[in-house]
C-alpha cells in the first residue's frame, strides 16, 4: 500500500489560515490502513483544528468527509454538489488523491495534510517499511523475493557493498542489508549459484526515467 504521515500541525494551519470554510477530506484506502488519513484521523484533525481556532477566537467551518477512494474520479464526484460551499479543501489522502481532487475541482484550492512516503508493507503493529519503488521491471523472481532497488540504500543490483555489518546496512543499525537477506533466502532455496549471474545495468525508463508513467488498457476503455 501507499504509506503516509500527517504533516506538522503548524504547516497544516498555515496552509488553510486564509480560509473560513474548509472541507477536510479523508480516504478509505491506503491512508486508512496506515492510520494517516482515514475517517478516524479526519475526525481527530478536525477536532484539533477547531480547538486551535477556538483559542484564537476564530470560527471556522470544517466539514468532514471521507471518500471511498480519493484517487478515483467516480468517488471524487461525490463532492460535486457541495464543493461550492467551501473555500478550500484539506486532503488527507496520498498525493494521488490530492491531485485527483485538484484536477476535478479547478476553482477550489486543495492542500495536502499528509506527506506521502512510500509503497510499503506492515512489519508489525504500527510499523510500516518500504518494499517497492515501482521500477516497472520486477526483479523479485531473481532475488529471492527481496527487492534490492527498494531495500538496498544504494539500489545495488549486484551487492552487497563493503559496508554491511552483522547483516545490517552501513547507514543505520536498524536497517537490514537487503543483499544479506537476498543471500540467505537464495541459500534457503538452494539457489546461491544465481548470485554470481551479473545483473545488467538497469533500464530506468520504466522506473520514471522515461518521464511520467501511464497505463492504458485498451480492453478496459469505454
Amino acid at each position, binding site marked *: 500500500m501507499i504509506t503516509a504521515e500527517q504533516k506538522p500541525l503548524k504547516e497544516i494551519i498555515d496552509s488553510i489560515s486564509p480560509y473560513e470554510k474548509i472541507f477536510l477530506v479523508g480516504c478509505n484506502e491506503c491512508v486508512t490502513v496506515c492510520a494517516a488519513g482515514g475517517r478516524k484521523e479526519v475526525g481527530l484533525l478536525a477536532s484539533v483544528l477547531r480547538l486551535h481556532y477556538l483559542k484564537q477566537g476564530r470560527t471556522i467551518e470544517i466539514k468532514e468527509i471521507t471518500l471511498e477512494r480519493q484517487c478515483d474520479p467516480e468517488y471524487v464526484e461525490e463532492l460535486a454538489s457541495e464543493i461550492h460551499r467551501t473555500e478550500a479543501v484539506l486532503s488527507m489522502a496520498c498525493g494521488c488523491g490530492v491531485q485527483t481532487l485538484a484536477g476535478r475541482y479547478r476553482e477550489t484550492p486543495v492542500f495536502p495534510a499528509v506527506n506521502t512516503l512510500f509503497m510499503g508493507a506492515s512489519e508489525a503493529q504500527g510499523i510500516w517499511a518500504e518494499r517497492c519503488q515501482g521500477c516497472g521491471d520486477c526483479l523479485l523472481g531473481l532475488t529471492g523475493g527481496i527487492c534490492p532497488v527498494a531495500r538496498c540504500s544504494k539500489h545495488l543490483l549486484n551487492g552487497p557493498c563493503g559496508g554491511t555489518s552483522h547483516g545490517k546496512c*552501513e547507514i543505520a543499525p536498524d536497517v537490514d542489508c537487503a543483499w544479506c537477506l537476498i543471500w540467505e533466502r537464495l541459500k534457503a532455496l538452494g539457489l546461491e549459484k544465481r548470485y554470481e549471474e551479473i545483473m545488467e545495468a538497469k533500464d530506468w525508463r520504466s522506473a520514471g526515467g522515461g518521464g511520467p508513467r501511464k497505463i492504458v488498457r485498451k480492453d478496459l476503455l469505454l
Partner: protein
Amino acid sequence: MKTTSRLETVLASGNLAVTSECGPPRGARPEKVKEKALLLKDYVDAVNVTDNQTAMVRMSSWAAGVIIKQMGMDPILQMVTRDRNRLAMQSDIIGAYSLGINTMLCLSGDHPKFGDHPMAKGVFDLDSVQLVQMVKKMRDEGKFQGGADIDSPPKMFVGAAANPFADPFELRVARLAKKVKAGADFIQTQCVFNLEKFEKYMEMVCDRGLDKQVHILAGITPMKSAGMARYMKNKVPGMDVPDEIIKRLEGVSKAEQPEEGLKIAVESIQRLKEVRGVHGFHIMAIEWEEKVPQIVKNAGLLPRPAENELKNL
C-alpha cells in the same frame, strides 16, 4: 597488454606492485595534491586518487589525477557511481583518458549520509560491477554502454575493490568472482588486519582459480595509535581488527605506538608476500602519507621497477 598502464606492466612483469592513495583537497589548491603525491614519488607504482571520499566534496579525481600525471607519476582514477549517471561517468572516462590517465578503480561509493551533503540524492544509476562492465566494454568493444561506437575508445586498466571481511564471509569470494566476470583486471582490498582470515579468503580465491584471472593487491593501513585501532574496530563498518593488534599497541607507551603501528604494517606485508594470489600491496596511510616510503622500504619493496627495466621485459 590491454593498456599502456604502468600498473598493468608491473603486474605482468611478476613484480609485487605497490600503490598508495592521495585524497584531493577540499578547495582549489593544486599545490596540496603535489605535496601529497611528492611524498610517494619513486616509492609506489601508481597513486589512487579518491573520488569525493566519504561523500565529502573534494577536487575531482580526474583533475587531481592530471596534476599527478604532470609530475611524471601514474594516477589511478577512482570513480564512484554515487555522484554521476552513466553519461557523466563515460564522458569523464574519455576526458581522463584524453589527459593521460589509463588506470581506474570502480566503486559504488560511501552513502551520502556519511558526508557533508547528506541531503543529496545518491545517483547509483549503475553499481560497481556494472561500472566495471561498462569500462571494459568501452575498451574491448569500443562501445558506449548504450551500444553506439566510440570514435577512439579509452583503454583503461580496470580495477575494483573487495572487502574480504564484511559479512557474510561465504559470499565474499562469490562477489569477487562476479567482479572478475565483469572484467576487473586488478583488485584492491579493504585494509587487512586479520591476517588469518585474509589467508583463508585467499585460499578460497585460489581454490576457484580466481588468482589466475585477476591481480589482488592487499590493503595495508598502519595504525597510529591503540585509539585508532579501537575506533576502526568499533566504528568503521566492514572493518575487522583483531584484539591482538589493539593489545600489542596498548602494550607500548603512547609515544611508541606510531612506530609499533608501522612495524605491524611492515610485518603484515612480509607475511602476505608469501600468500598465493597476492600480487601487490595497496598502502592506505590515512592522513599519514609521509610514512609510506618507510613502510615500502622496510617491507623490502624497493626499488620500484623503473620504466626502462619494464620495457626490456
